[in-house]
C-alpha cells in the first residue's frame, strides 16, 4: 500500500534542516578543530588559537563583503589586488605625511581615512562598470584585479613599499594589541561580522541583496534600484577590503606586488564554504565567518605537523576542504533525503 516513496518529511525537514544549515558549518569547524588537537595538542594553546583567529581576520573581513556581492548575484575577483593597492597607497601617503605631522595619530588617522575612501572608490568603480556598462562582473573584476596589482607594483617600483619605522611603532598595536584579552583584529572581525549580519538580515539593503540575487526582474518590479544596490554591494566590499588592509598594514608594515595574491579565491571559498550560493540569492554571514576560520585553520594544522611531505600540503588541504564541506552539507541532507 505504502509503496510510493514519499517526501513526507519535508516540513519537519524545513525546520530541522534550517537548524542544521545554520549549525552545519560550526559542526565542520569543530571536527576540524578536533583533528587539530589530535595532530598536535599545541593546537589548543592560547597563543595558537589567538594567532589563528587574528590571521583569519583579513580573509574573514574581506569575505564578509564578498558575501554581499555574491548574494546579490555579483562576483569580485579584484579584492586581493585591491588590498595590495590600498596598502601601497596608504604606506606612501603615511610616509609622506610623517614629514608634515610627524609619526603621530594624525598621520595614521589620515592614512586610515584615505584607505577607506580608496576602498569605497574602488568598489564604486567595479560596481558602476558592471551595472552601467552591463559587463559581466567576472570580466570587470578580472580586469581591475590586473590593474590594481600592476599599479601597486608600479608604485613600489617592482619592490616593496615599507612603512616609516616611526609610524610603524605607533600603528603596531592595531595588529598586535589586544583589548580585554582579545586581539584587536579579532575584535574588528567580530564587529564587521555583527554589522554585516545585521545589514544582511535586518535591513532593507540586505533584503534587496537577496531579492536581486534571486531574480533581478522581480527586484526591479518591486521598485528596487537594482543597479544602485548592486553598486553598493561592491562599495561595501571595497570598504571591507580597506578595513582588512588597515589591520594588515601594521602587521609587517609593507606592501608589494605579492601582497594579497589569491585572497580573492580564499575569500570566495570562505563564502561558499559558509553556505552562500555562488549564483546569488542566498547568503549567510556566520557561515562566511566560519568558512574563513576554517580555511586558516587548515593551514595552521598543516604547519603543526611534519607527518606529511611539504609538497603534499596542497593535497591535504584540498581533501580537507572537500571533506569538510561534504560533512557540512551531509548534515543538512541526512534530515532531508
Amino acid at each position, binding site marked *: 500500500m505504502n*509503496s510510493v*516513496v*514519499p517526501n*513526507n518529511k519535508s*516540513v519537519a525537514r524545513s525546520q530541522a534542516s534550517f537548524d542544521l544549515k545554520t549549525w552545519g558549518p560550526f559542526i565542520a569547524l569543530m571536527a576540524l578543530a578536533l583533528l587539530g588537537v589530535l595532530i598536535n595538542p599545541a593546537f589548543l594553546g592560547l597563543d595558537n588559537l589567538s594567532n589563528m583567529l587574528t590571521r583569519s581576520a583579513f580573509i574573514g573581513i574581506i569575505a564578509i563583503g564578498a558575501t554581499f556581492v555574491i548574494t546579490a548575484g555579483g562576483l569580485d575577483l579584484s579584492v586581493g589586488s585591491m588590498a595590495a593597492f590600498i596598502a601601497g597607497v596608504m604606506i606612501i601617503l603615511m610616509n609622506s605625511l610623517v614629514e608634515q605631522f610627524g609619526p603621530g595619530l594624525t598621520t595614521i588617522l589620515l592614512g586610515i581615512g584615505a584607505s577607506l575612501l580608496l576602498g569605497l572608490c574602488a568598489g564604486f568603480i567595479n560596481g558602476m562598470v558592471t551595472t552601467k556598462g552591463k559587463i559581466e562582473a567576472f570580466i570587470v573584476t578580472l580586469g581591475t584585479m590586473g590593474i590594481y596589482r600592476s599599479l601597486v607594483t608600479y608604485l613600489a617600483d617592482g619592490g616593496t613599499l615599507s612603512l616609516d619605522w616611526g609610524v610603524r611603532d605607533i600603528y603596531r598595536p592595531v595588529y598586535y594589541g589586544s583589548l580585554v584579552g582579545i586581539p584587536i583584529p579579532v575584535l574588528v572581525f567580530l564587529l564587521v561580522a555583527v554589522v554585516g549580519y545585521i545589514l544582511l538580515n535586518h535591513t532593507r539593503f540586505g533584503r534587496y541583496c537577496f531579492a536581486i540575487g534571486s531574480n533581478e526582474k*522581480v527586484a*526591479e518590479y518591486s*521598485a528596487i534600484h537594482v543597479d544602485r544596490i548592486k553598486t553598493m554591494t561592491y562599495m561595501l566590499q571595497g570598504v571591507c577590503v580597506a578595513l582588512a588592509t588597515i589591520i594588515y598594514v601594521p602587521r609587517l608594515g609593507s606592501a608589494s606586488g605579492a601582497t594579497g595574491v589569491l585572497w580573492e579565491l580564499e575569500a570566495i571559498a570562505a563564502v561558499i564554504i559558509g553556505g552562500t550560493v555562488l549564483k546569488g540569492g542566498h547568503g549567510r554571514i556566520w557561515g562566511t565567518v566560519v568558512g574563513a576560520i576554517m580555511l586558516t585553520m587548515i593551514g595552521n594544522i598543516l604547519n603543526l605537523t611534519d607527518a606529511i611531505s611539504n609538497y603534499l600540503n596542497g593535497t591535504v588541504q584540498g581533501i580537507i576542504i572537500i571533506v569538510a564541506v561534504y560533512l557540512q552539507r551531509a548534515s543538512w541532507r541526512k534530515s532531508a533525503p
Partner: protein
Amino acid sequence: MSTQDQPLLSARRICRSFGPNQVLFDIDLDLVPGEVHALLGENGAGKSTLVKILSGYLSATSGDIHLDGEARHYRGSGEAEADGVVMIHQELALAEQLSAEENIFLGRELRRGLFLDRKAMRERCREALAELETRVDPRARVKDLSTSDQQMVEIAKAITRDVRVLIMDEPTATLTEHEVEVLFALIARLRERGVAILYISHKLREIERIADRVTVLRDGRLIDSGPMAGRSKEALARLMVGREITDMYPERSALASDAEVVLEARNMVVPGAVKQASFTLRRGEVLGFGGVVGAGRTALIEALLGLRPRSAGEVLRNGQPVALRHLRDAVRQRIAYLTEDRKGKGLVLNMGLRPNLTLLNLRAYCRPLIDRRREEQAFHEAIERFDIRLRTEARTAAELSGGNQQKLLLAKVMTIDPEIVIINEPTRGIDVGTKHQIYHFVRELTEAGCSVILISSEMSELIGLSHRVAVMCAGVLTGVLEGEQINEHEIMQYASGIKGVGVDEQRRA
C-alpha cells in the same frame, strides 16, 4: 481501444502530506479514454498536487495509481511520459534560455545518426505551433516570449508527445479568448482520438463547455464526482466554495461628474510596441484596458511607470507633469502596479512569504532595522484581507498554490497604500470565490477614492467593473468606450481595429 467503463488511469486513496500537514485525503479519480474530466476546487485545494502525483512529478504519501489496470509507481515524470501520461504545468516548466523549438523537443530530440535533426524538429515544431494557430517563432528564446506564448509552447510540447492521458493544469489562465478557442478545438480532436483528458480551470464557463465529468476538491478532500450533465455553473461554484455566490460583479461605484483627473498620459510612444497613446484616469474611476494579447497595453503602462524605455510622451499626476523614471518614482506618487507575470516579475519564489509581501514597501517596516513583528502583523492582515490559504507552513513563495501566489502578489502591491492601482490580469488563476472578493475589493478601492486601471483579457471582467474601457489594437489606442458602448461586441470591434481612430492611418505612417 478500451471501453467507456474501463478507466485508463485510475487513482485510489491518494494521500499526500507536506511535512506534518496533509493536503490530500484519500482521493479517488478515474480517467476514461475520450472523456474530458474537469477537476475543480478553490485555490490551494490540492488540484495541482494531485495531478503532479498522477504524472510522476511528486510521489504520494500513500495510495495507488493504475494505468490500464496495472499498478504504476512513477519515480519521475519521465516514466509517466513514457506511459503516455503527459502534463501541462500550471507553473510553466520551460527552460527559459532555450528556444521554443528546443523546449518542445527537450529530452526526446529527433536525431539523424548522432546529430540532431534540426530540420525535422523545426518542421514538427512548426506543425504543432500551426495546429495551435500561434505565431510563435520556433527559434525565439522562451525568455523573450510573452506569458501566453509561453503557455502555447507548453501546450505544443505536450501535444507533440504520444499522449494517452493529457493533464492540463489551468492552461487557459494566460491565454486569449482566441487561443482558448484553438485549444478547445484541439481538445475536441484529442477526445475524438480517445485521449483521456484531465482539465483544471477556474473558469466555470469553460468547464461547462467542454467537461464530460467533474470532480470537486475542497481542502484536499473529494467533495463530489460525477457526470457534468445536469450541473450548472452556479452549482459547481457552490460545491467548490461551500457557499452561494451571488452578484459576481458588484454595482459600480458612482462616479462624480466633476471627478478630477488624477493621472494622464499624453502621446506615449514605445518603440516597437505603442504608437501615440493618450488617456486619462479620474478619481474613483475604474478604467479598463481591453485588447488582444500583444496589443501593447502592458507596454504602454510599463512605459508610463518607467519600467520600459519610451521614446516620447508625458505623464501628468494631478495635472502636474511628473517624471517617472523608475518604479520607485511611481510608488512615491502612490501608484501601485501588479504585473501580469507573477513568477517572472512578481514574486521572489525562493524567498519567504513575509519578505515577499513587504518587498515593495520595505521602508514602512523599517525603524531603521526591519521590524519582524510589524512584518508578521502585516502578513496576518494580508492573509485576512486577501484570503490567502496556508494549509501548509510554506517557507517560500514557490510552495504556495498558484492562486495563493497571485493573492500574495496582490497583497504585496497593496502594501504601499496606493491612490492609483494598476492591475494587469489580476484574477489569473484565481478561483471564483476569491475572484468575487477581488471584484468587491476593487469596488471598495474606488469607494475610498482610489482609481483603478484594469488590464484584462477577460471580457466579462472589463465589462463588469469598468466605468470606461480603453481598447488597444496593434499598439494603437483605438478608442475609449463609455456607458452603453461597453459591451462585448463593441470592444471586439475596437480590439481588432475594425472600428476606432486612426488605426490604418497610423499604421501606414
